[in-house]
């Protein structure tokens, strides 16, 4: 077993019972919080910018759409041929996984905030929560693409602004969706990463979105697309979207 997978194992073990019992996720959030401290001490200054933003000689890390595997690999093993060392052997295990959790939180993969218990939400937001999360795997909920309140799949970037009303939600602009052309086929695509000789993007032409791993030479990406958020709303009616928005607002206010 590699060191990285041991750490994943530890992280998994730590989180498993918490997730299973549906309680708060302090360890997940706390790992990210602790990671911010380690990151500030060990990674910023000469190399990375403060809080993972632009600055220093190393790349910015916040909001880059880095995926969990990539962050885990790079923190543990570094990037050969660059100044980025592997930290797996250099810092204690709790520190390295805290940094992984922190950098993941900068990329929307870990909610750095504590999870709000359902009972603390107003009734309409509770109904919205039930609609937001796809509890039966029939691809009816928003959580197949959006992470919120510690659950869901992080396909899309974290929801930063909650649309004002149902109309705004239906007409939501999606500037991050581009048009990719692979092997003569063009389709709406959400680019995740373009690093290490690989382009990762979600093929949004059908749901659920499919994550594709491509050689950069095999894909052309153009800005903009014909994709519309309303096409992903499926059978959700206005009276469903209302409580979903109430849920998003309630979480944002916490």
């Amino acid at each position, binding site marked *: 077993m590699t060191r990285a997978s041991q750490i994943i194992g530890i992280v998994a073990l730590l989180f498993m019972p918490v997730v299973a019992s549906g309680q708060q996720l302090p360890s997940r959030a706390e790992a990210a919080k602790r990671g911010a401290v380690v990151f500030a001490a060990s990674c910023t200054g000469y190399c990375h910018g403060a809080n993972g933003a632009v600055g220093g000689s190393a790349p910015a890390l916040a909001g880059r759409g880095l995926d969990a595997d990539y962050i885990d690999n790079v923190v543990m093993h570094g990037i050969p041929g660059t100044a980025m060392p592997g930290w797996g052997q250099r810092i204690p295990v709790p520190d390295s996984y805290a940094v992984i959790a922190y950098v993941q939180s900068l990329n929307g993969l870990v909610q750095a905030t504590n999870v709000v218990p359902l009972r603390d939400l107003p009734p309409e937001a509770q109904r919205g929560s039930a609609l937001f999360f796809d*509890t039966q*795997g029939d691809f009816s909920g928003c959580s197949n693409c959006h992470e919120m309140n510690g659950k869901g*799949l992080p396909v899309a970037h974290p929801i930063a602004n909650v649309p004002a009303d149902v109309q705004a939600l239906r007409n939501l602009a999606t500037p991050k969706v581009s048009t990719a052309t692979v092997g003569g086929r063009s389709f709406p695509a959400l680019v995740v990463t373009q690093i290490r000789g690989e382009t990762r993007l979600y093929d949004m032409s059908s749901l659920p979105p*499919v*994550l*594709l791993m491509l050689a950069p030479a095999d894909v052309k990406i153009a800005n903009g697309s014909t994709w519309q958020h309303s096409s992903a709303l499926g059978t959700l009616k206005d009276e469903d979207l209302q409580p979903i928005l109430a849920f998003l607002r309630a979480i944002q206010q916490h």
Partner: protein
Amino acid sequence: MRRSFQVAIFLLATVCLLLHTPQARAQKQAGDSAQIKQGSTGADWPSHGGTNLAWRYSALDQINTSNVKNLKAVWSFQTGDYQNGLESSPIVVDGVIFISSFDDVFALDGATGDLLWQYKYNPLPGKTTGRNFGVAVGDGKVFLGTHDDHVVALDQKTGKEVWRVADADSTSCGRCGIQAAPLIVKDKVIVGAAGAAGSLTAYDMKTGHRAWRFSMIPKPGEPGHETWPDDDTWKHGGISIWQTGSFDADLNLVYWGTGDCCGEANRGDVKFADLYEDSILALDADTGKLRWYYQEIPHDNWDLDANWELLLMDRPVNGKMRKLVVQFAKAGYTFVLDRVTGELLAVYPYAKTNNFVQSINQKGELIGRLDPPLGKTTKTCPSEGGAKNFNQVAYSPRTQLAYLPVVEMCNDLTLSSTPGEPPTFVFTAPPNGPAYTHLDALDPVTGKIAWTFPYKYQIWESILTTAGDLMLTGDPEGHFFALDARNGKKLWSFQTGSGNHGNPVTYMIHGRQYIAAPTGEGVSAIMFNTGVWPEAANWRLGSTLFVFALPEESK
């Protein structure tokens, strides 16, 4: 005699002789040779059940009853994951073995055991890896279903990810995940998921696009929903898929067995059949539309999923040739259906210790159900481990026999009187004596036993049978062994050092036949056995692929 006449006599004699060889008889009785070809593996082991007919039968006969005594281990491979043993089936394509353990995939050189590539799946934050029964290979890709309910396509040559898609949001959905090996059907890969998202879903192998999905529980307004109580039990039920299905290319039908619903929780009146729990489904391969279903156990209170493998074979029933689907079900009964229509043609008990019903009649009706009264402990048989667990039977068209490992064990079952609360199962001996096991060679249609191989503990390794008239499997004491498929005589045995718990396969590279046996006892096998055999607590874990062949000079 004139020469041409002599030749004619000789030819006639040869034909007569040929018709009397076991193989010719087999071909005459077991459908046409085209089907035997369809059901047999050759140099490759392309699919979880061998081929899509799920016989676990190989046409290779280099290793056979006369030389198996010379079989030697030629290499081994350790996965390093010991917790649940090595439960998966290797897939062999063009001399390369693809085997999964948890959510790891290894590609090995089939002749040397050298690691060609290794893939490690990183689950979602907060999710773990779990049991995995194997991968599927097609379209230049290796397909893995993951414990956190994703489907991953890897490049067959390099092990690099090509695409990945969520089968369900496992962070929101109760117990959702994939452990069964996927099934390749034409241009699609089909995965079966467990948990609240219990379903069969087909993905385009090239693009990863979802082609169709069949959810195990019909929603309000859909046919079958009326078999559920008028509350929201159906929402939380979850009918899981634990194993891999079969495919008939001529009929264009995919066959799959389904699990029981609701985590065996106390869930109300027995009059509710709760479709499609404990059923055999026939789905259109292109659309996923249900063609027919057959429910073995309506309202299963005993955890007797109808999930196990489905053998497709053409055999005479009552003198008439029929296209069959046969399941040696967890409940200790064999169900023989017409696979065109779903009509029940025969049902018979294969386990001797059976009291959850008094009988199942030839219409398939459960007679004398022993539904445990709520809150009262009741001894029911077979146990929730089944008269047979997930390890698969094998069927040889040469002997016309199926090879079936049987467990005679019960459990003390207590259904909670609180609705929705899970029951307790305590493994116990049968009412009239200690728990025991046997491996039977039997006619799959009539259940008539040709020979039986008695044993003490549960055989938890799948069976492999070959044109060399061998039947191979392993036991929890570490022996991987070969029997004569015709009479059950033990011909060879090898001590692997830990219990056997996976799916052995055979393949050929450069004219040399190999037998690959995943070995290593797992925690669950031990858990299921300590109740009746306390010494099972001492069984050692392991996870090693052993590969055997004849010495080069003697093959």
